[in-house]
């Protein structure tokens, strides 16, 4: 647990968009999926997850619909909009540029 890192500010949006690109998910599942896929390396704080979801929805990149969760409860499922898909591509490209740059700096100094 103590090895987990809080998701970097700014990358949370990217991770959320990427996660729900596959299928619509509700908030808890998104957090779990990010944790699982990152081999428990990344932890999503609830305190930033929901504001981020609402912000993304507000910006029109994701939409929310009520659906039934895996344990048969009403849950808000978030899915990508068309604009969200474009945004995801842009964010991915931006992240790749950034991480490549950071890596270069780390390797060459």
């Amino acid at each position: 647990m103590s090895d987990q890192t809080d998701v970097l500010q700014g990358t949370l949006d990217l991770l959320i968009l990427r996660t729900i690109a596959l299928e619509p998910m509700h908030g808890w599942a998104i957090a779990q999926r990010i944790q699982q896929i990152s081999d428990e390396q990344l932890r999503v704080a609830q305190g930033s997850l929901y504001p981020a979801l609402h912000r993304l929805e507000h910006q029109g990149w994701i939409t929310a619909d009520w659906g039934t969760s895996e344990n048969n409860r009403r849950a808000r499922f978030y899915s990508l909009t068309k604009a969200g898909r474009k945004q995801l591509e842009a964010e991915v490209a931006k992240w790749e540029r950034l991480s490549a740059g950071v890596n270069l700096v780390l390797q060459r100094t």
Partner: protein
Amino acid sequence: MRLFHILQSRLRSILFRDRRESDLDEELQLHLDREIERLEATGLSHEQARLQALRAFGGVEQIKEAARDARGTGAWDALVRDTRQGLRRLVRDWRFTTAAVLILGLAIGANTAIFSVVNAVLFRKQAFADPDRLVNIYQNDRTGRPLVVTSYAAYKEIAEYPDVFASTMAGSIPNPGRYLHEGAVRDGVVEFATATYLDVLGLRPSLGRWFDQSEERPGAPLVAVVGYQAWTRLFRADPSLVGRVIKIEGRPVTIIGIGPANHRGTLDVGLGTDFWLPITAVPSIFPGFAPRDVPTIFVPLFVKARLRDGVTVSQAKAAMDVLGRRLAAENPEAFRIEGEFSLGPGMTVVPSTDVRIHPQADKPLMAIASLVLVVVGLVLAIACSNLATLLLVRGATRAKEVSVRLAMGATRRQLVRHLLSESVLLSLAGGIAGCIVASWGMRALQQIDLPFRLDFTVDYRVLAFAIAVSLVTGVVFGLAPALKATRVDLVQTLRDEGLQPIDHRRLTLKNALIVFQVAISVLLLGGTSIFLQMTAAARALRIGYAVDGVAMLETDLRFASYSDADARRVYDDLLRRIQAVPGVQSAALLRGLPMGPNSVQIVVDGASDQKGVEAVVFAAGPGFFDTLRIPLLYGRVFDARDRADTPHVAVITDRMARLYFGSVDAVGRRFRIQNNPNSWTEVIGVVRDTGTGDFEDDVLDPIGPPFYNSYTQTGAQPTTVMARTSGDAASLVAAMQRELRAVDVTLPVVTAQTMAQKLENAQAAPKGIATLFGALGGLGLVLASIGLYAVVAFAVARRSREIGIRMALGARSQQVVWSIAQGVAGLIGVGTGIGLVLLVLLILVMRAGSGSADIGIGNLTVYRPSIDPLALLTIAAVTALVGVAAAFVPGRRAALMDPLVALRHD
């Protein structure tokens, strides 16, 4: 698409705020539950899992807040929250809120009403096309100043300058005229104009057409254009009015069009013109306007012309001066205007945009209007300063609350926003109250019974003005106390070392304001008493006759087309029938309303001075003096002996007998009308002078002494029947109307009322003014007492700790009240004193004025009030009482304070 989503989500979050909240709750709850399930699956007990999940989750409220902010509705929520809190607080402090809304409402209302009137008279721009090319043309008097009006003959000459003016027009001043509508005779405003009238102004009739040149020829069938306002109000905008025939002053007139919606008449000063007729219709509508046998029409005209392209105002002026000199040389008498105006050779040409009413009248009117606006603005300023004081008092008592909030982490911005929202709410409520007060005020103004119908409406600019005033007021007086309240020294206030030095300068200013307000209230109440004095004076003057049990009925035979001989028979028939009504003791016919005077110059037989003296003649018939119970002192009154073929006789008043005949018993003496050498009239009786009952004639501007002649001898038609009953005058009015219908159902009732009502109506204007002053005085008093209250409350709040110490040390409550009362009594005393001195000065100035003041367009008659010590005493006592009462409330609170509470007081 994205924009749509954003809009949708924002709208949804604002509109479905509650659902959004419950959605958020449900979403977070699900998260928590799933987390607990997950932890349970790792082997923890339910309780352990729940605790751990909650711990990891963090503050639910913070997350919610952050989620709300992310949606961009945070500002909205804050606004809603501030508004709610503000409302709640205002409801809790309902006493303060009522006072504040009352102050603002009254001040804004008074402002809006008076601004509307001033706006209607002076600032409403007329909607003329290309107004820069329009000029007004006036004939000058001998001193070279433009006269009020221009004669028709002069207008015709002015119209003969096509190289200077592209077109010229003339419109008469508005005249009161009667017309028949739905079986009733109504008072309207009639204006005469040339066929070119609308074209020169660049306006179009909104329906039908304007009269043309052929209809302007003398003898053409009578046509009229109805004013747009009259059309919409009286005729419910019925388009079929065009083509109908309406009787105006008894003459059938065909309606050919409806005037432009944006034009109310030549003199747009609150009166809208109801009918426009061709200028040549003057002799047939108002035969009395052309008493002399002259070819021109003597109706005062306003002349406007459109300059030909390339012609300047000064060129037009030069051309008109040449014309003026020529007219003066050729035939000065023909270009004289009926009345007392002396014509000079010059002419005045001014751009129409520079003139509101008349070049000579605009300046004094503007001065009066600015004065009124300044006074009303002062009332608003006082109201605002009072409110600021009130808010300061609240701020002082809330200093602790503010510091607690600051200590708890509220930002200054939040606090200011919160306090500001309160005052904006207050001023909005005040603005609404002001609109209500204003519309009441306007309605009250329009209720005043006048021959003209004044047309004041609260227009949108005035409304905007009121709202702007209320908002600016709110922000200004809200921000100052709010900023002051937040600049509290935290440690100091929390430690409650409440004895901060009092800001003496601020208090002095406040005291000065209170003194000023008390003085102004005294002055306004003094104005009320002066007008009440005037009404009482008028009432005292008509003690001469008894109005109880007297009823009158006026009809107008011109609206029923009778010949003169038939008309006399109709009246005699009506008189016989009314005399036969049970209970009627006496009845009489007369011409004009009872007490409707007519000023004449008379020459007394044998008098050395043949120049003529002024007297006032009333046309009365047999039975007149009995009906009004006017005591006969000498000789006899009119009876059947006085016929058209017998020598003319008159009944004079004792005032006239004393003034012009040297003794009260003037029976047998003779006099004549000055400009008619064959009008020798013998005095057959002397009655007591009763005044006319008309306020202006009797009190403001006393005219010559009255005498009576008989309509049976002068050949004039009676118009009115008057009767005295032993029973109820009101039921006699109904009986008289029944008899009129029995004589001829088509005869219109012009007025039917009891004599008491008639006299009451004649007093409406001064009474209205007295009421207005009374209301303003009351308003001033209310404002001043709120100011007093606020100042005392402020002082008490500041001194509560000191009061507590004094009481703890054994001071009695009376002593505490006394120490507070001293300061207040001083303020009230000084204010009342200044007000009384100002009031006496005002009365002295009014008395010094020789009964009239020249305001440039004629004389403004001024009543000469007397100094009434009882009234002054009453005013001073009322002011002092109200002031003391206002100060008593917070003073008593201080005196009743528990010393322990007072010591702990923040």
